[in-house]
């Protein structure tokens, strides 16, 4: 039994901009509590959400762990299951389906029927080099006609279960597990999709139930997920992020890239518009002159990129549009760009709100300036805590994880038992 008394989760994010380590648990209030957090710039070791330079990423991760461990009030041996976010291109999302005939005289769907249908749905074959790392309930259909969220207790002759399956090249998971083992995590860690993780921290229960599209625009990539009836319908990754928008400004207006990035992050376009001026005065030292750049040029470049990116998302989720009952939620660093919400609303023709992780306890100071940039990380913590609860009792993203998380827990418990904790 850990001296701290609770399960402590270790959460890792390999982002294009930063590598983060967070320790979290369930706080006294029942809310997620951050025990410790550290981050360091990725410095090019991660590109488009995927690890590009393993050695460099390893060094940065080790330093980040060292920073995070400094404020620990518990022994590092008490660290519990490890989760890490998987992102970037190369992640495939598919819909799997499985059927089961309902026997018995009363034709009532039981939990065993549901488990069997889900097992069959998961058995969608994938290529030998791919591994399934995330399987989430989508929805159930009874008698081939009626779509339903919770089929238990319903009368039916046949039950179909549809699940959302995420798979990736197994080398990517092996690569991270090798890094974790080198850092002392003997059991490695469990991968989670960044696209789905953000759902847990940003969407309200009503939004997940009534249907919502979540878009998380990070530095290197933009992820999206459609959740309806508390089940995942679509998810995906577009290899475009805030860095691309800054790069467009850099190329289009002959401005330094870092200047363009800070221009976007500090919402300088909106601030300049509020002053009533129509241009930005930039001291071009290379050419020894003061240049006046119309703000409309910034708006045009940013607008074109955002419209294109959101247009791709619209095409990808077109079949699910009628199921989105509430609207879109935009999170991530990209949500801080002026006009991003407006453009997303125009493309999707829906209401849009900016999303941030919900309230958490603990060491939150680091997140106060831009909590939306950590939506996936907080989502991973919530995901871990949902599975910990024995009363989750609800079908959907939460419930279907139980079997998956059980596997993770049993590995950890074995190790903890062996260590006499």
């Amino acid at each position, binding site marked *: 039994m850990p001296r701290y008394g609770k399960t402590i989760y270790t959460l890792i994010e390999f982002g294009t901009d930063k590598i983060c380590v967070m320790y979290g648990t369930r706080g006294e209030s029942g809310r997620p509590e951050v025990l410790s957090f550290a981050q360091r710039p990725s410095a090019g070791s991660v590109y488009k959400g995927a690890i590009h330079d393993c050695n460099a990423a390893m060094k940065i991760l080790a330093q980040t762990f060292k920073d995070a461990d400094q404020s620990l009030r518990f022994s590092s041996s008490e660290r519990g299951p490890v989760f890490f976010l998987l992102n970037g291109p190369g992640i495939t999302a598919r819909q799997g389906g499985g059927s089961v005939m309902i026997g018995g005289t009363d034709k009532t769907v039981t939990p065993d029927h549901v488990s069997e249908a889900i097992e069959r749905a998961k058995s969608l074959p994938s290529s030998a080099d791919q591994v399934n790392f995330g399987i989430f309930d989508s929805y159930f259909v009874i008698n081939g006609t009626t779509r339903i969220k919770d089929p238990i207790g319903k009368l039916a002759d046949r039950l179909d279960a549809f699940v959302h399956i995420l798979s990736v090249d197994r080398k990517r998971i092996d690569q991270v597990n090798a890094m974790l083992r080198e850092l002392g995590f003997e059991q490695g860690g469990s991968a989670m999709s960044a696209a789905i993780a953000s759902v847990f921290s940003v969407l309200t229960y009503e939004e997940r139930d009534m249907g919502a599209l979540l878009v998380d625009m990070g530095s290197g990539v933009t992820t999206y997920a459609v959740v309806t009836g508390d089940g995942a319908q679509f998810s995906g990754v*577009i290899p475009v992020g805030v860095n691309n928008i800054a790069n*467009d400004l850099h190329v289009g207006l002959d401005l330094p890239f870092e200047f363009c990035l800070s221009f976007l992050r500090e919402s300088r376009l909106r601030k300049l518009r509020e002053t009533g001026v129509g241009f930005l005065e930039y001291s071009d030292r290379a050419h020894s002159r003061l240049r006046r750049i119309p703000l409309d040029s910034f708006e*045009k470049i940013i607008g074109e990129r955002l419209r294109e990116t959101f247009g*791709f998302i619209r095409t990808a989720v*077109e079949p699910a549009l009628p199921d989105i009952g509430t609207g879109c939620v935009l999170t991530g660093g990209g949500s801080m760009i002026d006009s991003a919400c407006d453009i997303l609303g125009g493309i999707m023709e829906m209401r849009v709100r900016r999303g941030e992780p919900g309230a958490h306890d603990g060491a939150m100071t680091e997140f106060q300036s831009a909590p939306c940039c950590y939506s996936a990380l907080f989502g991973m913590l919530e995901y871990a805590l949902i599975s910990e609860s024995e009363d989750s009792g609800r079908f959907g993203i939460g419930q279907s994880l139980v079997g998956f998380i059980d596997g993770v827990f049993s590995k950890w418990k074995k190790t903890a038992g062996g260590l006499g904790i």
Partner: protein
Amino acid sequence: MNGPEKSSMSKVLILGIGGTGCGVVRRLKNSGLAENFDTAVVDTDSSALEGHPADRCIPASSDWILKDGVGCGGDVIRGERALARERATLTALLRGYDLIVVTAGLGGGTATGGLRTVASVIRGLGTPSVFLVTLPFAFEAFSRRRNAEACIDELLPLADILLTIPDDLLFSRLSPDCSASEAFDLASSELAATVGGIASVLRSRGLAGADFAVFMSALRGHRCSCGIGTGTAEPSEGLDRAPLALERMLDSPFLGGQEYLKSSDSAIIVLSGGTDLTLAEMKRTMEQAASLLPSQAETLLGTAVEPGIKGQIRLTAIAIHYQEEPEPRAGRHAAPPRRASRTKAEKARPEENSGSGLFVQGELGLTSFSRGIFDRLPLVRYHEMDLDVPTFQRRDLNIDKGS
């Protein structure tokens, strides 16, 4: 005269941009068609604004320092810069309206360059907008047509409704020996009548069966050419006003004729009249108008009673021809294929194989794109596209880098 009934779009502004736009607003004011509207004009040519009857005249200078007011010489970048500079003034001017109707002729500098700024300001204010623009005649320079098309591409995502009217539709009315100046004059007067008609229809909520939102959804985001016809008739012209108004509508030069209406992909027809407009007249007129439309076209029909129109009836038709299959909006955002542009060597070379007997090897004029900070990083394709190349480059858009 009694004031107009309060409708959801009681405060309407007609805004003219550039030379054509200013001319249209001038005609509207002089003919009395703009009685119930506010009007404003914006131009880089200060001489065009002198003595202009519009309620507000905004001069925009393409030179930020000199403020010379001599126009932008057909330069799109200068036109863009001029209106960008006046953005704060435009924002103050356009605030507080229920509907803004913008009119301009594309192909030159002021409107072609500046309309995007206007659309952006209107969108920022959250006001519904209708852009009625003309495309250059075929006999005008190719560059004007190309600039006009580029402007339309930029306006499509920003404008609620964008109606593009090819000036060439006027050829159905022009006589073969008509001069160019007469052609431009006719274009301007017809456009003025059209703008007045559209603004009246939208202001009076004339689309009783289909409100502005439905009107918008039929047109929003679609690249289309429109023919617009307006026909009016007074009781003094005969007992039966309706067929007369219909005939005049069909005769409108900007409608492109009955054939253009018959072959449209979508059509909107609105009948407006005063309080003496009878139900029988309404029914007969709309039935006759509807019979002119193709059966498979999507049609919106509506009627409106405007107390300000005493005795007159007005029939307005908009025939919409989609320029491409209305595709999912995101499809429009797919990058176009790289366009080959002529290299300097190619442009300098005299006509090859001109019969001199010498074969001159050609060159592929490929444009190189910059990937900026991603230049040395691996290529990550998405649907066969390299998204690290800036979007504006792949779409060949002009960007003003300032001066």
